[in-house]
């Protein structure tokens, strides 16, 4: 992919100087964005990255002057093509919005009005800003839908939001924004809510459109891989300030700020697992805006900070052409100190003898749900249709090992986990733990079994009782399942908190007093309280920031080593699954398509679905050239499952009618790796390339 040559020396499209944005609270002001300056030229895409609380979204909303009512711009200038936006009245801003600045937001499904057909939501922009009459505006809307590659635009234009998938809605929003060909496009996490395969398709589209429309783009995201793929320059924000800025390659290859280095180190690599490297982590948490440190805002978490950093705030200085950093010690970072990068390690892999029976054995598990059909012929009453969420899956997890399960949302991974835990009663199949058959419902399982099988959920806000203290939450399973005496519980809880790296002082805190990562640590401590043999982790890190994700993954790996628990790790994040798993199973539409050791699954031959998933991972390295394998459309409904190979409707490597009619057989590429596909493995190997073709 070639990037258009950004031309910074000319007048930039957007120039932000010394922008300060604060939120008014009862006791004064919280300075959410402080002294940020940046410029974006014609045809240039500027990536703004940062974790939650970094102020990136506040900045974006400040640029368009659309802040919440307590948000105030307290200084600075925002100049768009020579016009200072702060000189404009609100009425005048409405002529800038939509016409000169277009904005695409994070969640497509809530950003489209549910009561108006989507075509009209594009056409109204054409009428407003292009002065088109009704019929012409509608034609323009259709034209824009074609621009963004919408299949069947005429029909789609007449649909409502609930009838379209997330990816299609994001196309609609992008089409809306581009209708006026604005000078500046602001994209705030436009792909964060989408599945990885859809994300890849939308990113391709954004890239293509950026080339075509040549507008300036401010691209906001927390995902370093996306920035690497999309942007020409990148700015790294932390706690409301710009830490580093520079051309994309330079920042990714030669970061000169400890925070940037730290972030890059946090992201799991898809070419190394937990046995090879330990993920880098950034200790501590982002400071609260009312407790900002005196010197460098990052100093309290910085591994190389010294006295001066804690005293004096470093200015953002240009250290190489176009490369700026706000660090006193940047010169020392040209050769990154070991404290700032992921450490290679060589931990001997324990290979389980093949003959040993798996700890968990799920055989032919099926879970069908009844759904009340919607498109029902006149008066036929309620005809039920069957959703085959999990349709004949067998998996095994060995003692002390991790089985990762990957697949797009809606593929049945969570349902499978819930069946194993006894939260759903499987329609068919058998689940054995240590050879002992488990009752399908958790309420009928004996306590000793409950003790052996624990679960960590995605959303700790929903899985921790908000009324209970940390001590109560972690102590409860001890009391109920382990028979620990009341007097000893506190001691045990402190021990557990220590093992998840939380201080004793947290004992009496309530969940709302903890950060997202801390809550998940409490949930992990609770799961480990009874020394389970198997822990089912359903997307345990998905809602967290990258640096927090890294520390939680390290924690899980550490606990696995010390306690010998096995994990069933479910995630849509392939890099995370690759890092933490010994074995990986790929699920699509309720069935397994590929099972193997993590290393084998991530190397050819792959199942074409796995190949597409891998090719979609945004890799935080601007030099990586990934094969572009893209899937069309979204996962078919589990009510009408395609015949033959269930993947044939989207398979980019479909070979012919056999795929539509015959269920593909399992093929073995080695003792630990099998693929269910009609294409011979040799052919697959020839066709496919490794994920990181030109990395390193």
């Amino acid at each position, binding site marked *: 992919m070639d990037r258009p040559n950004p031309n910074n020396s000319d007048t930039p499209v957007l120039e932000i100087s010394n922008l300060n944005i604060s939120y008014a609270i009862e006791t004064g002001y919280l300075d959410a964005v402080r002294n940020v300056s940046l410029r974006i030229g014609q045809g240039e895409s500027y990536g703004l990255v940062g974790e939650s609380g970094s102020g990136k979204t506040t900045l974006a909303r400040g640029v*368009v002057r659309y802040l919440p009512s307590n948000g105030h711009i307290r200084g600075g200038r925002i100049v768009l093509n020579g016009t200072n936006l702060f000189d404009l009245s609100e009425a005048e801003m409405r002529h800038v919005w939509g016409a000169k600045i277009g904005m695409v937001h994070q969640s497509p499904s809530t*950003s489209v*009005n549910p009561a108006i057909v989507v075509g009209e939501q594009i056409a*109204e*922009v054409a009428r*407003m800003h292009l002065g088109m009459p009704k019929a012409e505006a509608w034609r323009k809307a259709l034209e824009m839908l074609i621009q963004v590659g919408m299949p069947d635009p005429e029909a789609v234009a007449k649909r409502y939001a609930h009838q379209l998938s997330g990816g299609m809605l994001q196309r609609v929003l992008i089409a809306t924004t581009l209708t006026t060909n604005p000078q500046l496009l602001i994209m705030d996490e436009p792909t964060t809510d989408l599945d990885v395969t859809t994300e890849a398709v939308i990113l391709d589209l954004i890239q293509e459109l950026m080339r075509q429309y040549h507008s300036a783009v401010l691209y906001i995201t927390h995902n370093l891989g996306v920035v690497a793929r999309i942007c020409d320059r990148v700015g790294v924000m932390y706690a409301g300030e710009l830490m580093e800025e520079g051309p994309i390659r330079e920042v990714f290859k030669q970061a000169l700020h400890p925070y940037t280095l730290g972030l890059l180190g946090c992201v799991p690599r898809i070419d190394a697992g937990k046995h090879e490297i330990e993920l880098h982590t950034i200790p501590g948490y982002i400071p609260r805006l009312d407790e900002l440190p005196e010197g460098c805002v990052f100093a309290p978490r910085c591994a190389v900070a010294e006295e001066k950093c804690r005293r004096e705030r470093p200015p953002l200085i240009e250290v190489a052409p176009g490369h700026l950093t706000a660090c006193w010690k940047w010169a020392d970072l040209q050769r990154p100190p070991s404290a700032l990068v992921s450490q290679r390690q060589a931990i001997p892999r324990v290979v389980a003898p093949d003959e040993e029976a798996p700890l968990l054995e799920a055989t032919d598990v099926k879970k069908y749900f009844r759904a009340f059909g919607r*498109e029902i012929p006149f008066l036929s009453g309620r005809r039920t249709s069957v959703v085959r969420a999990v349709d004949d899956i067998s998996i095994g997890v060995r003692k002390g090992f991790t089985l990762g399960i990957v697949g797009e949302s809606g593929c049945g991974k969570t349902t499978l986990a819930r069946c194993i835990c006894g939260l759903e009663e499987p329609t068919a199949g058998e689940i054995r733990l240590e050879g002992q058959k488990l009752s399908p419902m958790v309420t009928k399982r004996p306590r000793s079994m409950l003790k052996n099988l624990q679960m960590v959920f995605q959303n700790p806000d929903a899985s921790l009782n908000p009324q209970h203290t940390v001590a109560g939450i972690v102590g409860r399973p001890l009391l109920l399942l382990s028979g620990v005496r009341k007097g000893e519980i506190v001691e045990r809880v402190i021990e557990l908190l220590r093992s998840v790296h939380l201080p004793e002082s947290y004992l009496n805190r309530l969940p709302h007093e903890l950060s997202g990562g801390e809550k998940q640590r409490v949930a992990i401590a609770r799961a480990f309280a009874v020394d389970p043999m198997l822990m089912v982790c359903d997307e345990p890190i998905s809602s967290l920031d990258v640096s927090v994700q890294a520390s939680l993954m390290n924690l899980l790996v550490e606990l696995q080593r010390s306690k010998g628990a096995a994990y069933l790790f479910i995630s849509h994040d392939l890099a995370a699954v690759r890092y933490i798993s010994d074995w990986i199973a790929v699920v699509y539409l309720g069935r397994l398509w590929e099972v193997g050791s993590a290393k084998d699954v991530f190397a050819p031959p792959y199942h074409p679905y796995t190949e597409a998933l891998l090719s979609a991972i945004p890799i935080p390295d601007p030099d990586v050239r990934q094969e572009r394998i893209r899937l069309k459309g979204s996962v078919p409904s589990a009510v009408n499952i395609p015949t033959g190979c269930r993947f044939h409707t989207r398979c980019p490597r479909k070979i012919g009618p056999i795929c539509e009619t015959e269920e593909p057989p399992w093929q073995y590429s080695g003792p630990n790796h099998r693929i269910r596909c009609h294409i011979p493995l040799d052919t697959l190997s020839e066709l496919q390339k490794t994920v990181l073709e030109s990395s390193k």
Partner: protein
Amino acid sequence: MLQYILRRLGFILLTVLLASIIIFAATQLLPGDVAQMILGRWATEEALANLRDELGLNRPIYIQYLDWMRGVISGNWGKSVTTGVWIQPLVMQRLRNSAMLAGLSLVFYVPLGVFLGVIAALKRDQLGDELISAVSMAFVGLPEFVTGLLLIAFFALALDLLPANSSIEPGADFLEALPQLILPAITVSLTSLGYISRMTRSSTIDVLKTDYVRAADLKGLPRAQVLVKHVLRNALLPTVTVVAMGIGWLIGGLIVTESVFGYPGLGRLLVFGIQRHDMPLIQASSMLIVAIYGVSNLLADVLYAVLNPRIRLG
């Protein structure tokens, strides 16, 4: 959509059926005896027995129920036992009166309530919002006989603008009755205004916070267009259903207001029947009120479905 409506219709029919059983059972349990009511306290045992026989009161209870239901469905609602008037025309005339009052009240309070609710939402937590909330909640809290009497004292007695008594002629049409309808309609409106404005306020605030309204703003559409097209269309959905469900209450439940103004509505007819232990009258008017509640619920469901593409299109 059709299936949805049919399903709702089924539910409502079931509700009405259950209500009919309850009404019938309740009228059986009421203290006092119809025969005694008709013949007076000094009637002989024999006369009472004869009359009971004649009225069919000695038959098994389920036969009486089925018999009654057959009458209800076929439109033969019988005669009032205390006044000897045919019930059906009486009830229908009262229904018409009630509908006139309900209609005028709706015209008064729905637009005003929506308007105030939207203003309150836009001026959220500012003086305008606090004022609207305080005043409208005060009226919700005041019983109708207080607001009604205050209105009478002011508009009828002090200013002599409108009649204090609303006992309209039987068969009067809307225009003839209008002067007498205004005060009771205002009374009803003051009580209901608060619900509508609070409802509209909270749903408007919710919708104003949505991503799609932000997106509409950032398209650069004029504020008025964002409000009418993007906000109200979604925000009024709950209000519309509340209004539609309120119709049942407006027609059958205005007993206090009707009594204060002496207005001959359906509610007052029911009270009249109850005071005199006039079983057929009680049964007929309460069945009608139940049916109207059912219809207004169905109306609410249908409106909700029509306005909400997620239900309309499935």
